[in-house]
């Protein structure tokens, strides 16, 4: 196709062609098959190039300045900072940040993630009896953490969990603001107690969901397995799976009812979804560690190149690893801060 013909196609597509030129293009499309194909392809290209128009508005320089600043200072200069690392015993848990400027939510989430990492570091560096260990999530952030007794807590967005460094020595007490799902390690000698502003939950070994956002007028507890006791003011109820205990903050009354719908949906927020397509186990593990905020490692070099194709929907980390374990024939072992995979290789 000659250069003149390309110019003609350009005019035709951009609406610059005269009536005579349009007729010329259309006649050529009938008589000249390669020409017709070129026009069709160019038309496709012309139409689809519009979809990348938005890329034009991306300001890479501004984005780089922002990322650069976040790296240097550890905070996002454009987003509000949530300084929660460690607090003394008598300070009140923070409520959720209600007014964020539009568009900053996930930036704040990233900041919270960084803050959380530093909180972990702080925990190991400063073990002071008077300090309370705290974990806080930002908007859109869900983390899974393991307490010293092996209890797994999944913390929903905008939530905060704290406990004393001597947790587990005499008692197992945590303080929650926001929402958390607790899978409690059984220990009949040391009841597990969750304090919130409005209620207190006592259990031996079970799993349940507590929702206690400061900004909401009701707090609730839903039981997935086992039996729990909920106290609020002078009242007390026992809950079994499917039950929901609710405390209204206005009159401080405690009521017991049934959950609407499936119990599983109550804690659906703690599940995550992934798709892996023929990806190396190292990448998979890196992704899982990142998303669940747990330490997942591979012990044998030979395992690292195993490839995995899988879609995980609504799974906890443990479930995901069990599936990987049976698919790739690897062993999954619990470690203090997560899981370790071992095996023969693929």
């Amino acid at each position, binding site marked *: 196709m000659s250069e003149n013909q390309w*110019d003609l196609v*350009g005019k035709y597509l951009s609406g610059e062609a005269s009536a005579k030129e349009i007729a010329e293009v259309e006649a050529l499309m009938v008589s000249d098959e390669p020409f017709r194909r070129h026009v069709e392809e160019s038309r496709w290209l012309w139409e689809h190039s519009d979809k*990348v128009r938005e890329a034009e508005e991306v300001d890479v320089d501004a984005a780089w300045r922002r990322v650069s600043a976040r790296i240097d200072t550890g905070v996002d200069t454009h987003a509000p900072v949530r300084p929660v690392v460690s607090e003394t015993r008598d300070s009140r848990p923070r409520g959720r940040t209600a007014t964020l400027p539009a568009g900053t939510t996930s930036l704040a989430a990233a900041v919270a993630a960084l803050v959380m990492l530093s909180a972990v570091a702080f925990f190991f560096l400063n073990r002071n009896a008077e300090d309370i260990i705290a974990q806080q999530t930002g908007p859109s952030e869900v983390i899974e953490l393991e307490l010293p007794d092996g209890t797994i807590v999944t913390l929903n*967005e905008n939530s905060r969990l704290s406990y004393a460094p001597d947790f587990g020595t005499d008692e197992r007490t945590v303080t929650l603001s926001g929402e958390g799902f607790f899978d409690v390690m059984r220990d009949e000698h040391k009841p597990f107690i969750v304090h919130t502003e409005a209620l207190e939950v006592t259990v031996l070994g079970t799993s349940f969901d507590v929702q206690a956002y400061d900004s909401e007028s009701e707090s609730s507890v839903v039981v997935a397995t086992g039996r729990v006791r909920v106290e609020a003011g002078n009242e007390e109820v026992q809950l079994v799976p499917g039950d929901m205990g609710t405390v209204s903050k206005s009159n401080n009354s405690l009521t017991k009812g049934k959950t609407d719908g499936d119990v599983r949906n109550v804690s659906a927020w703690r599940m*995550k979804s992934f798709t892996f397509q023929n990806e190396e186990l190292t*990448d998979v593990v890196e992704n899982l560690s990142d998303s669940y905020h747990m330490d997942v490692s591979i012990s044998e070099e030979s395992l690292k190149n195993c490839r995995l194709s899988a879609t995980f929907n609504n799974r906890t980390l443990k479930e995901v690893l069990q599936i990987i374990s049976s698919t790739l024939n690897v062993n999954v072992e619990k470690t203090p801060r997560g899981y370790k995979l071992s095996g023969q290789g693929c």
Partner: protein
Amino acid sequence: MTLSPKEITQKLKDGDRKVFEELFRMHYTELCLFARKYINDMEKGEELVQDLFVRLWEKRETMEFSTSVKSYLYTSLKNACLNHLKHLKVREKYQQHVAREYKDSQHHLHDPMGEPDFEIRVYGAIENLPRQCREIFKMSRFEGLKYREIAEHLGVSIKTVENQIGKALKILRVDLKDLMAILIICSTW
């Protein structure tokens, strides 16, 4: 920058900020387009990509990249997008249809070509056009300017504008030939 993926990984681990910046500038826009494909929100996509780079930098020393940093970026971003979608759904957690809706959204994510990044290819091809050619093509296509307006704006003849648009089409077609072959066959089915 002509470093091999291995060299990039090593320099990154060593804390080479220049390489990190190059990596960022090279992939940022494409990653944003990639994210938009999943979550249909350019602004949110930019946030996810920025979070991703901050995390990459924070964790560079301990991170293991089996193939390349680039494949890490795309895999992580894809999962960040899926989890973002998931999160949107989870907000309606007491509603029974959550699971079904999520399934539907998953369905959209499956690109029939198995190539979710064809927009990235188109974007990349446009960016690779010779400077004047690219400038004129964008003014016509993205800003909707008439040939005459482009010519006046750039101080060139209308004939030059015609030639450059024709040239752009010719180059783009060659660059994206494989992509167009698939798509055109599919659209005629």
